[in-house]
C-alpha cells in the first residue's frame, strides 16, 4: 500500500501512531513492510491456505464474534445434506463435471432450495469485497470500499463447442452475464439453527472445511513459520470485537490468480466471523490502481455489464427479445433487498439510451441491445483477433502490449487487425509494435508484412477536460477543466461524441442515399444530442445529468432524480446508471462539492459524492447490534433512534430508514420490505453476510486452496492441483510449464511474481515518458535473494535472463535480502520479483523487457481475470539472446520440460502419473 498508494497510506501511518498494529503479508519485503509492525513473507499463490488457517484459528479457538455471526451472517443457515466437501472428493466439491470442468451447484444450496440461478457475481463482491478489479495496482484508503466487480462472461473450456456451451449453461448458472447484480436466491426464507450445532448448518460445514488448515499446514503450503502465523492470528482476533475492528486491505493483485475471487471470499469469511463488516475501521478494502477503474466498472466499459451492474443480455439465458425475461433473471420479486426493482433500473437506462423511441409497447427498445453468446472478454477477443474475426480495435488509455498477460499474443493479435485506433497521452508500445516490438526483433514479424492501419490520436489530460473519476471508495469527484488541450489532443468524450455523430449522419443518409437500414435504428434512435462548446467539446455535465436521470413526466418533469428509489419501470424516469442516481440530487452536481475536510466531520460527507446515496461505508447497519445500539461507544457509526423511529448516525444509514430493529417481515414479502430489522446485508437475497456462498460462484461455495496454474510444488491438501474450473486455453501459442512433481517441473524451478513500483504507473504510459519519474526507476530489474544470486551466479547491477514456458526476458539484477527463500513442503522455494512497468519500444525515456511477456493466459472462471501474480521460471546470469536465438532458447526449454498442449491444461488433476487425454483441442 505504501508502494502503490502512498497518500492513502497516510491513514495507515496515522492509525499506527494511534496504536494500531500493521501487518504486511507479501512475498516481498516492500516499502509497506518497512514501516509495518510485522512482515510475513508468503509464497505467491498460497493465500487461501493462509486465510483458511486464520479461519480455522478463529473457529477452533472460539474467537468469533458470536452475536454478530449468529445475527448477521448465514452461519446458522442449514444447507442441503447432499453437499460434499473437497476432502471427500479429493479436491473438488460435489457437483463437479470433469468433462466440462464445471460445477452443477444444486448441492451447494440452502436446504429446501433448488438452484434458481447462480450468478458469477455475488452480492458480496459487488458491494463489498469485490472480485474483479483486474488492475494490478491497488487503490486507496477507505472505510469499506465495495467496488463493483465485473464478473461474468461465458466460459471457454477448450474450443468454442456451441453445443457443450449450451448444454452446460443451466448447470453452470448464468455467471457469464449476470454480471454484478447479485445472485438470485428466489426468496429470503431459510432454515436456521441459531445454536450453530446442526451438522449441516453453514457454521459446522465451515468448521469442518477449514479444520485441516492448521498452522503446520500453513507452514507447509505458504512457507510461513507457525510462530509468525499465530502472531498474525492473535493480532487479528485481539483487534476485533465490540471495541475494536480490523481492516483487511488488498491490492488488486489478489485478483490476479486462477482463484482470485476466492481469495477475496477468504478475507470476507474472516471479516464476517470477526464482526468487521459494515463497521468503522473494518471492511475489506480493495486498493485500485487507476483513477476511475471503479467508475469503469460501475459505468462499465466491460462486455458483460450494462451500467449499474445490470447484465448484458445473453441469448441463452435471457431469451433474445423479452424485457420481462431479462428482468426476471436478475432478481426474484420474493427475495430481499433492492435488486427487486431491477425493472425500474433497466427501463430508466433504456429511456436514457433511446429516449422517446423507448416505449412500453416496444419493450423500451430492449431489443436494440446486442446479445452475448459466450465469453467476449479481452483475452478471448485477442484470440479472436488471431483468428481474424476482429477487424478493428480501439485502445483507450490502455497499453496491452505491456500491461496484459502474454504480451507476445497481444502484439501478434494486433498485427492481424485491419485497423487500430490508439488514444493515449504518449506514443505507447501498443501504438508502435509494428515498428519496434519484440517480434520485429526476433523476426517473427516484419513491418512490411503487417497490414494493420494505425491511427494514433493524442488524448487530453485530466486538466484539459471536465468530468468525474470514481475513486476506490466509490467516491465521485469532479475535475474541472483548467486549460484547452494542445494540438490535436482531444478528450474521449469529444472523440466518441463526434464519432457517433458522424456515424449517425452517414447512416441517416444510408448507402447511396437509400435511407437507413433496420440494424441502424439503435444508432439513429439513440439520444445523442449533448451540447458542445465552441471547441466542439461536449458537456460532461450534461452527460452526468443523463447518468443521474430525470423525471420525464409529472410535475417534476425535467428535474433530476434524487435517488434510485424514484426510478419507475413505466418509462416515466430515465437514468443512465441507477447506482449513480443522486449525484445530481437537487439539481446540483454533487460530485463538485468541495467543502474542506477540516470543516466537516471525519466521515466528510460533503466532499464529492459516493454511490449509492452518498453512503461512505456500506452495510453500516451492521455497525449497530441487533437491537440497533452501537456495538460500543468507541465504534458507534450508525444506530437506531428509538424516539424518532429512524436510523441515524455519522453516515447515511445503509438500511430502510424506518425499518425498526425488531421488524420482521411476513413470509413471502420481498424487496426492501422483506428485510428484517436485523438483516444488514441489504443486497443479499437473505439479508445476511455469506460465510458460505450457496450461489453466485462457479468454483466453490467456500475458498479452498489450489496451487497456481504453474507451481513448483504439489498441492499439500489433496490430489487436485489447481482450480478445477479455471479457464484454460490449450493452444500452441499458450503453453504452460509442468508443476509440482510432474516431470520437467524442475526446468522452471523458481516462482516469479509481478508488481508495481511507487515511481511508475501500470504499463508506463503515464510515467515512463516523464523525466522526473523515469530517473527514479530508470531500468527494468529483477529482485532476487542473495541465495538465489549465489545459486545462479547473479551479480547486483548485472543482468539476468528470466525464462518461462512462453519466452525469455532480461533484466538488471538487484540482489536483496528483501527477497526471502521459503521452506515449502520440505524444499526451498526461491521467488523472483519483477516490476511490470517496462516494455520494448523506442519512444519512452526508459524501456526494457516486459514482465508480462512471461505469462500465459489462464483465467479465473468467475471473472475471466488472468493469473499474473505467479508462475514459474528459470533464471540465468547474463543477457538473453536476441533474434532467432531467443526463440531457440525458449524452444529448448520447452523441449527439456516436455511441454505439450496437455501440460497444465487438464482441469481435473489426473490420478497418478497416467497421462490423460487433452481437454479441448
Amino acid at each position, binding site marked *: 500500500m505504501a508502494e502503490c498508494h*502512498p*497518500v*492513502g497510506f*497516510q491513514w495507515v501511518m496515522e492509525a499506527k501512531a494511534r496504536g494500531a498494529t500493521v501487518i504486511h503479508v507479501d512475498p516481498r519485503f516492500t516499502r509497506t513492510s518497512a514501516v509495518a509492525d510485522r512482515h510475513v513473507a508468503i509464497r505467491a499463490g498460497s493465500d487461501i491456505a493462509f486465510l483458511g488457517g486464520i479461519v480455522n484459528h478463529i473457529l477452533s479457538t472460539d474467537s468469533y464474534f458470536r452475536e454478530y455471526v449468529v445475527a448477521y451472517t448465514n452461519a446458522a443457515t442449514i444447507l442441503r445434506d447432499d453437499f460434499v466437501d473437497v476432502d471427500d472428493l479429493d479436491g473438488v466439491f460435489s457437483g463437479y463435471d470433469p468433462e466440462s470442468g464445471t460445477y452443477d451447484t444444486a448441492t451447494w444450496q440452502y436446504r429446501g432450495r433448488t438452484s434458481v440461478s447462480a450468478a458469477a457475481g455475488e452480492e458480496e463482491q459487488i458491494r463489498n469485497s469485490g472480485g*474483479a*478489479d*483486474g488492475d494490478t495496482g491497488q487503490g486507496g484508503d477507505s472505510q469499506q470500499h465495495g467496488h463493483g466487480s465485473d464478473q461474468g462472461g461465458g466460459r471457454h473450456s477448450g474450443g468454442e463447442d456451441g453445443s457443450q456451451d449450451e448444454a452446460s449453461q443451466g448447470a453452470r448458472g448464468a455467471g457469464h452475464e449476470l454480471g454484478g447484480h447479485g445472485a438470485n436466491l428466489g426468496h429470503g426464507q431459510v432454515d436456521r439453527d441459531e445454536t450453530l450445532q446442526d451438522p449441516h448448518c453453514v457454521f459446522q460445514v465451515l468448521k469442518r472445511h477449514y479444520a485441516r488448515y492448521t498452522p503446520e499446514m500453513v507452514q507447509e503450503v505458504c512457507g510461513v513459520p507457525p510462530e509468525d502465523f499465530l502472531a498474525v492470528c492473535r493480532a487479528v482476533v485481539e483487534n476485533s470485537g465490540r471495541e475494536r475492528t480490523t481492516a483487511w486491505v488488498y491490492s488488486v493483485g489478489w485478483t490476479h490468480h486462477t482463484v482470485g475471487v476466492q481469495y477475496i471470499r477468504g478475507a470476507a469469511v474472516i471479516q464476517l466471523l470477526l464482526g468487521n463488516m459494515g463497521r468503522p475501521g473494518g471492511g475489506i478494502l480493495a*486498493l485500485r490502481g487507476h*483513477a*476511475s477503474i471503479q467508475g*469503469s466498472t460501475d*459505468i462499465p466499459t*466491460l462486455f458483460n455489464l450494462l*451500467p449499474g451492474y445490470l447484465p448484458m443480455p445473453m441469448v441463452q439465458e435471457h431469451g433474445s427479445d423479452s424485457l420481462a425475461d431479462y428482468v426476471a433473471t436478475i432478481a426474484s420479486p420474493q427475495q430481499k433487498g433492492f435488486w427487486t426493482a431491477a425493472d425500474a433500473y433497466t427501463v430508466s437506462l433504456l429511456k436514457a*439510451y433511446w429516449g422517446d423511441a423507448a416505449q412500453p409497447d416496444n419493450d423500451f427498445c430492449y*431489443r*436494440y441491445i*446486442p*446479445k452475448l453468446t459466450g465469453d467476449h*472478454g479481452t483475452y478471448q477477443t485477442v484470440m479472436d483477433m488471431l483468428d481474424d474475426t476482429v*477487424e478493428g480495435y480501439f485502445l483507450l*488509455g490502455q497499453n*496491452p502490449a505491456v500491461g496484459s498477460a502474454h504480451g507476445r499474443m497481444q502484439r501478434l493479435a494486433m498485427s492481424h487487425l*485491419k485497423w487500430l485506433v490508439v488514444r493515449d*497521452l504518449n506514443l505507447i508500445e501498443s501504438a508502435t509494435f509494428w*515498428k519496434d516490438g519484440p517480434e520485429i526483433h526476433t523476426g517473427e514479424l516484419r*513491418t512490411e508484412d*503487417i497490414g*494493420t492501419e494505425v*491511427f*494514433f*490520436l*493524442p488524448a487530453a489530460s*485530466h*486538466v484539459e477536460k471536465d468530468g*468525474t*473519476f*470514481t*475513486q*476506490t471508495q466509490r*467516491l465521485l*469527484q469532479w*475535475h474541472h*477543466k483548467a486549460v484547452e488541450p494542445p*494540438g490535436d489532443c482531444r478528450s*474521449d468524450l469529444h472523440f466518441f461524441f463526434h*464519432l457517433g455523430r458522424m456515424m449517425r449522419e452517414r447512416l441517416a443518409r444510408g448507402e447511396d442515399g437509400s435511407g437507413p437500414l433496420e*440494424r441502424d435504428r*439503435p444508432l439513429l434512435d439513440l439520444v445523442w444530442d449533448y451540447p458542445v462548446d465552441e471547441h466542439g467539446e461536449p458537456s460532461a455535465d450534461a452527460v*452526468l445529468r443523463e447518468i443521474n436521470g430525470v423525471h420525464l413526466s409529472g410535475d417534476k418533469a425535467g428535474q433530476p432524480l434524487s435517488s434510485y428509489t424514484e426510478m419507475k419501470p413505466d418509462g416515466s424516469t430515465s437514468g443512465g*446508471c441507477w447506482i449513480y442516481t443522486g449525484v445530481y440530487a437537487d439539481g446540483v452536481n454533487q460530485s463538485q462539492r468541495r467543502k*474542506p*475536510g477540516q470543516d466537516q466531520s471525519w466521515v466528510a460527507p460533503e*466532499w464529492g459524492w459516493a454511490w449509492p446515496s452518498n453512503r461512505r461505508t456500506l452495510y453500516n447497519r451492521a455497525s449497530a447490534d441487533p437491537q440497533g445500539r452501537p456495538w460500543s461507544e468507541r465504534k458507534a457509526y450508525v444506530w437506531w433512534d428509538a424516539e424518532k423511529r429512524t436510523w441515524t448516525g455519522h453516515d447515511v444509514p445503509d438500511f430502510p430508514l424506518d425499518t425498526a430493529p425488531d421488524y420482521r417481515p411476513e413470509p413471502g414479502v420481498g424487496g426492501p420490505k422483506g428485510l428484517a430489522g436485523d438483516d444488514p446485508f441489504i443486497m443479499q437475497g437473505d439479508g445476511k453476510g455469506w460465510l458460505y456462498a450457496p450461489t453466485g460462484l462457479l468454483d466453490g461455495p467456500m475458498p479452498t486452496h489450489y496451487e497456481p496454474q504453474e507451481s513448483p510444488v504439489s498441492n499439500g491438501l489433496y490430489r487436485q492441483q489447481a482450480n478445477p474450473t479455471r479457464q484454460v486455453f490449450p493452444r500452441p501459442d499458450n503453453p504452460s510449464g509442468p508443476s509440482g512433481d510432474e516431470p520437467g517441473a524442475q526446468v522452471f524451478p523458481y516462482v516469479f511474481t509481478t508488481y508495481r513500483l511507487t*515511481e511508475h504507473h501500470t504499463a508506463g504510459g*503515464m510515467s515512463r515518458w*516523464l*523525466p522526473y519519474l523515469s530517473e527514479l526507476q530508470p531500468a527494468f530489474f529483477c529482485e532476487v535473494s542473495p541465495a538465489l544470486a549465489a545459486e545462479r551466479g547473479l551479480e547486483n547491477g548485472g543482468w539476468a535472463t528470466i525464462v518461462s514456458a512462453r519466452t525469455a526476458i532480461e533484466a538488471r539484477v538487484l540482489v536483496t535480502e528483501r527477497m526471502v527463500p521459503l521452506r515449502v513442503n520440505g524444499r526451498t522455494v526461491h521467488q523472483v520479483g519483477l516490476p511490470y512497468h517496462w516494455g520494448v519500444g523506442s*519512444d519512452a525515456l526508459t524501456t526494457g523487457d516486459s514482465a508480462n511477456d512471461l505469462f500465459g493466459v489462464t483465467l479465473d472462471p468467475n471473472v475471466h*481475470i488472468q493469473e499474473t501474480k505467479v508462475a514459474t521460471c528459470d533464471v540465468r546470469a547474463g543477457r538473453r539472446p536476441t533474434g532467432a536465438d531467443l526463440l531457440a532458447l525458449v524452444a529448448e526449454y520447452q523441449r527439456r520440460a516436455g511441454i505439450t498442449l496437455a501440460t497444465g491444461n487438464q482441469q481435473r488433476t489426473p490420478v497418478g502419473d497416467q497421462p490423460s487425454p487433452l481437454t479441448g483441442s
Partner: protein
Amino acid sequence: MALQDIRRTFLSWPVVRQLTGSDPTGRGAAVVSDHTRAVTARTETADRVVQSICPYCAVGCGQRVYVKDEKVVQIEGDHDSPISRGRLCPKGSASEQLVNNPGRQIKILYRRPYGTEWESLDLDTAMQMITERVLDTRARTWQATDDQGRDVNRTLGIAGLGGATLDNEENYLIKKIFTAMGAIQIENQARI
C-alpha cells in the same frame, strides 16, 4: 547617468550596505539583490486555480491546478481534500510534467497498412477515416442472428480496451455508442 542614480547605485552596493546597515558581515539583508527582493511564488501570480483530481491511481487525491496565460504552471495537492490533505505521491507530484512534458505527442500520427513510418494526418480527416472504418467493418461483420437463428444484432468485428483512466462520462458514452452500434467486445483494465 544622473548624479542621483550614481548615488543610488553606490548606496545599493552591498559593500556600502554592509558598512551602513544592520548586516556588517554581508551574509544577510545587505546582499539581497533586486531580483531576490522581487521573488514571489508563481501560485500567486497565476491567473486562476482550478480544483482537480489526480489522474494516476484510484485514491483520488485532490489537486490544485494553477494556470497562467492559459498554461498550467503548477499542480500540487489540495489541502482541502479529506482524502489526501494536500499530499501527493511522486506520480501525482509529476502531474504538471504529464501535461507539459515537451516530449508529449500532441499531433495525430497515421501508419498506413504495410507502412514503415508514421505519417501526419489532420483531425477531421482522421475522424472521417475512422468513421468509415467502423461502419465498413460493422457492415461486413454484422450478425443479425446467431447460428440457431436467435436475434443477436451485433458485430464481433470491433473491439475496445480501455476506460479505467477515463472519466465516467466518457465511459458512459463509449458503452452507449458501442451498444448502439452492436459492438460488444469492450473491455478495460478492470478485467486485467
